[in-house]
């Protein structure tokens, strides 16, 4: 019985599309700008050890990842009128920041920084929601491989990222021709990162992100 219900539910998904007067093109490519918000990366203390074994702070570290801008791109392959698979590429240039304070020998407080390159290559699914005029809303989720490189490109470490959110495409013309601007895409999502350059004392970093892109029909 349960199995029958599940089949009905799955079958209902592609069927529930009468609101979409037309299906989007089969292949879409978008290229745009992305902004990834700040993320707290934890705090720590550089310690010595007292004769009784207890820690004695030498100085304190308060760590964060500053907001970053960059570019991203999505290649979307439509499976059904509502569902598409998506390959994502992203490059951003965040700054790792550490506020150093409370030095035992009186060193002035400093915020030390290191700009890094962050690359994300991922894949996920996009589900179209109900349109509002020329606005076509959607929700999406993806999982990606993450690589971060130091500013001098000598150190790189990998991790992974999960993105979940949604957005809307503003379609201003019919889908005529190829490699023509077709619509504008705006996305808002939550970035959940683990790994990358070993900096944070938190197991995962959470940051909001936004992008705006121009969609081309392939």
């Amino acid at each position, binding site marked *: 019985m349960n199995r029958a219900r599940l089949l009905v539910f799955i079958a209902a998904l592609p069927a529930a599309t009468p609101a979409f007067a037309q299906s989007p093109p089969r292949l879409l490519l978008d290229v745009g700008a992305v902004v990834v918000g700040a993320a707290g990366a934890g705090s*720590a203390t*550089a*310690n*010595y*050890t*007292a*004769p*009784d*074994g207890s820690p*004695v702070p*030498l*100085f304190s*570290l308060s*760590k964060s990842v500053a907001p970053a801008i960059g570019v991203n791109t999505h290649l979307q392959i439509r499976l059904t009128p509502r569902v598409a698979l998506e390959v994502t590429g992203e490059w951003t240039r965040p700054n*790792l920041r*550490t506020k*150093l304070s409370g*030095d*035992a*020998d*009186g*060193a*002035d407080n*400093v915020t*030390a*920084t*290191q700009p890094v390159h962050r690359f994300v290559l991922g894949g996920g699914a996009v589900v179209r929601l109900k349109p509002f005029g020329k606005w076509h809303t959607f929700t999406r989720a993806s999982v990606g491989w993450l690589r971060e490189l*130091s*500013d*001098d490109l*000598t*150190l790189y*470490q990998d991790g992974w990222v999960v993105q979940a959110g949604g957005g809307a495409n503003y379609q201003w013309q019919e889908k005529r021709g190829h490699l023509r601007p077709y619509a504008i895409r705006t996305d808002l999502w939550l970035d959940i990162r683990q790994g990358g*350059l*070993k*900096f*944070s*004392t938190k197991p995962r970093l959470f940051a909001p992100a936004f992008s705006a892109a121009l969609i081309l029909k392939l």
Partner: protein
Amino acid sequence: MSARIRLALVLVALVAAAPSVFAYLSLGTTVNGRSVQTRWTSMPIRYFITNRGVAGVSAAQMQAAAVASFSTWSQVPTASLSASFAGFTNAEPVRDDGATVIGFQPHEELERTLGVTAFTLDRTTGTLVEADIYLNSAFDWSVAASGEANKFDVQSTLTHEIGHLLGLGHSLLGETVLRPEGGRRVTSKRSVMFPIAYLVGTTLDRTLQDDDIAGVSDTYPTGKFLNSTGSVAGRVTLDGAGVFGAHVIAVNTKTGQTVGAFTLNSQGQFTMDGLEPGIYVLRVEPIDDADVGSFFNDDAKVDVNFRAAFYSKLVAVPVGGAGASAEIKVVRK
């Protein structure tokens, strides 16, 4: 024998311990005008124990503590070294007899010195051929597993001295305060090789710290060490000129690994090896928690008149090499 030179290093836990913390410092000598790292080239290092104990510590207990201390160093996974006990002897330590001897000796005149390590080097190669250690029996000693009130721990002190025996100098990773009666007292530290010992009754120096591990690994590196760690290099400057003898500390922002080094020339240049790959904070300080003579020759022009400071950038340390060079600027006190 004429090709040998002998130097004695009073490198032990001074009773009135003072502060000072620093990263590791390798001992070296000059051979034919070039600087050579002081190290053993033949393993295992064979050592004897003087067949004489002191109150509360027999020769056999001293030998057991020496085995444990050598084992502490030889078990560092990124260092390749070994030692073997050759037997008890009636020979005294600190005698140029070709044998490495460890034992107790009374030295009432050294009222702040727990132990001494003395070396014999091959003058043509800089290689260690003999290194003797004595613990000053003018103090009260203990081999109790958890330490003993009012007594110094034999194994902790031997671990420090054996670090010297292996070719390590002093570290400045520690903080001290001046004692009214003279000398210094350790308030905290993060290296067995800090020149001043903890107070009596503690056994913390039986365990190596990051700085000690980096130092011994740099002196006796395994392939794993060379392939899994990186380094950082740079300069410390004051008004554009290099600062000699500044103590630079690197702290890993993720793991907290803490290693130190000194600027070793008039350009103020420093290099630190044995760092886990990652992002580091750099901090520089003058030698003000221990005597300059614990680290450099008396005629060295060490600058201690500047304020502690942080480097304004985080430093990336890659595997098997160094990232961008760092210039840390300091100002006068």
